[in-house]
């Protein structure tokens, strides 16, 4: 026993020494001149297998073509990326290039963590993406991210059930209104089946994006400050979904707390006839559906307009990077029209690049016409540039909208929270 303890102690000491040696030995590359090989770290949030594969392929192609600028692929994940970036920037170890979403960039930009891309982007890259989409990552004239994947809220439906009920699939240029959607959901509802199932686990982003259908903006500028607001336009989408849940009983209450793909088992089983969701869900349906399951993509719904807020996925460059020029070059390569098509295909989403839209890789996918149509109505919404939006959303909006959809508070109580409590939080960011 004694010997074992001693041996173990010796081992430990040895192990610690080795580890210390390793730590000291693997210093970072301090590239003096651009001719010396440098390395960059690129963190991706891809999570669907096809998408991860596409990401890694493109990185490999870059590395082959640019042996002096080696890019290391780092796998990140949506669940912990916010925390990880905040600590990474504080510790000086954030990735050089990272994948995220436009609506979260504002706070990082304010903290001085992001490189302003204005001085680096080529004109070719600028022209490839519509100005409305660039706007989502532009704050106070600084461009802090390059948008590449767009998502829109569409409706997936069980084809067999639509046929049984005699419901026709609308064309992308003649979308259903919310009224038509509700009426059809009513037709599809019967014993043991709901016409629709909204999976709104983190509802705030989704609801804010959709509320632009009825011009609901949730924030207003006042004296150079953002204020949370809640009036008639903001109420419409919330009220309509709530009615479908509790008044008409044509939407499944058990689905309301689910994450995106959680509704699929019941969807495949015919318990939910229609599943409104982001376009990205296509990929999961293709992957998981039983062989004999027939489904269609119904174009985005129309309120007073079809407008939805665009919250594109983006690539940004850290302000701490030692090689900003190379980092931006890699980013532009990674997001070339051809590569955007591959990435969009991997995630079943719509590329921000105009040049990627005609790529046959995309045009052949199921539901593509519907997906591509969404490119035209996506816009920047006020909430995307509000300072402190992340905290407002996570601390107040998500929980209280959930409470509203669980029928535990009224719409006026919801408004009270979003505005009164919400402004208390925004206050802190505007001092």
């Amino acid at each position, binding site marked *: *026993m*004694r010997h074992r*303890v001693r041996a*173990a*102690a010796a*081992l*430990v000491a040895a*192990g*610690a020494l080795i*580890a*210390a040696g*390793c*730590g*000291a030995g693997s210093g970072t590359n301090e590239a003096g001149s651009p001719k010396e090989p440098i390395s960059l770290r690129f963190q991706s*949030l891809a*999570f*669907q*297998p096809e998408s*991860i594969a596409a990401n890694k392929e493109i990185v490999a192609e870059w590395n082959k073509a640019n042996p002096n600028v080696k890019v290391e692929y*780092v*796998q*990140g*994940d*949506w*669940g*912990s990326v916010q*925390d*990880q970036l905040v*600590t*990474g920037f*504080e*510790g*000086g*170890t954030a990735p050089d290039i990272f994948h995220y979403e436009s609506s979260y960039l504002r706070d990082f930009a304010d903290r001085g963590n992001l490189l302003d891309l204005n001085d680096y982007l080529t004109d070719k890259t600028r022209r490839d993406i519509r100005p409305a989409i660039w706007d989502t990552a532009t704050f106070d004239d600084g461009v802090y991210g390059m948008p590449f994947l767009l998502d829109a809220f569409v409706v997936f439906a069980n084809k067999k059930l639509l046929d049984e009920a005699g419901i026709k699939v609308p064309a992308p240029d003649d979308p259903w209104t919310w009224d038509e959607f509700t009426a059809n959901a009513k037709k599809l509802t019967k014993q043991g089946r709901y016409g629709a199932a909204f999976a709104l*686990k*983190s509802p705030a982003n989704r609801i804010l994006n959709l509320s632009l259908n009825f011009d609901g903006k949730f924030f207003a500028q006042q004296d150079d400050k953002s204020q949370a607001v809640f009036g008639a336009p903001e109420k419409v989408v919330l009220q309509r979904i709530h009615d479908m849940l509790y008044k008409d009983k044509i939407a499944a209450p058990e689905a309301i707390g689910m*994450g*995106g*793909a*959680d509704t*699929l*088992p*019941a969807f*495949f*089983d015919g*318990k939910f006839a229609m599943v409104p969701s*982001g376009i*990205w869900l296509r990929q*999961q349906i293709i*992957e*998981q*559906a*039983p062989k004999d399951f027939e489904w269609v993509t119904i174009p985005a719904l129309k309120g007073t307009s079809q407008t939805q807020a665009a919250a594109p996925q983006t690539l940004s460059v850290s302000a701490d990077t030692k090689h900003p020029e190379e980092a931006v070059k890699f980013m532009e390569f990674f997001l070339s029209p051809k590569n955007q098509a591959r990435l969009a295909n991997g995630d079943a989403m719509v590329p921000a690049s105009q040049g990627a839209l005609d790529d046959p890789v995309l045009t052949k996918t199921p539901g593509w016409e519907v997906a591509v149509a969404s490119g035209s109505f996506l816009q920047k919404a006020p909430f995307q540039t509000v300072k402190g939006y992340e905290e407002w959303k996570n601390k107040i909006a998500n929980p209280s909208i959930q409470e509203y959809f669980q029928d535990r508070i009224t719409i006026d109580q919801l408004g009270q929270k979003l505005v009164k409590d919400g402004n208390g939080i925004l206050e802190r960011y505007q001092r």
Partner: protein
Amino acid sequence: MMTRTSPSRRALQYLALAGYLVFLAFPLWWLISTALKTPQEIARIDPTVIPIHPTLENFRTAFEQQPILRSILNTLYVAGVSSLVTVGLAVPGAYVMARYRSIVGKSTMVWVLLSQIFPFILVIIPLFLIVRDFGLFDTHLGLIIVYIVWSMPFALWMLRSHVQSIPIEVEEAAAIDGASRVRMIREILAPLLVPGVVATALFTFVSAWNEFFFALVLLKSPELSTLSLTLVKFIGAEGVARLGALAAASLVATIPSLIFFAIIQRHLTSGLLSGAVKS
């Protein structure tokens, strides 16, 4: 045993044990079952308890997409080293705290309790800066040091209770024989402490094995990733996870420690005996 247990009492005991077994085992069974299912079967509305078409496809996906094996080795290394060092340092310390009437002992115990009370949030921000300034950010050694420090209070506390439950007369006898205190600890106390030491080492090993947040904050390089970090990367946007592959990876992740525990659990019972005999 001098007393006998009545059959009806035994029956009740078995019934209770069966209840515990079901409660403990059924989530694990579900994990195993999910790991063996095809994506189509996972998505079935009426879930099957036993997979109809068992497949190892999920394991292939898991190993292809994430460096599971590497993460397991990383975690074994970090947890193993930190638990050995912790216990090695804590045994003598705990002895002093149990047996000396000293300010050091008292204030340490107060600190041990206090530091347990302090939530991790108060520590992680400054600790993060310190580890960075020592050049240990994003290294295993940095994480190991943090784990040692973080499990030390608990190790001291547990071992102190175990020292206290050993009768003082044992030591008094040794003292009369003229043994030095250090020798007495090594040759008389240590063997008696084996069950306590095993339990404490287990605690520290497993808490390091399971730990997630320190690793999340202190490790950034994928090749250094511990198991929890790697597994979290399976969870994608909007809570969508690749359930089959995730279950498969989780299962693989649990196997080494399951084996470890299966071996160790016998020692938890026999440790006391063998220790007494070998002395």
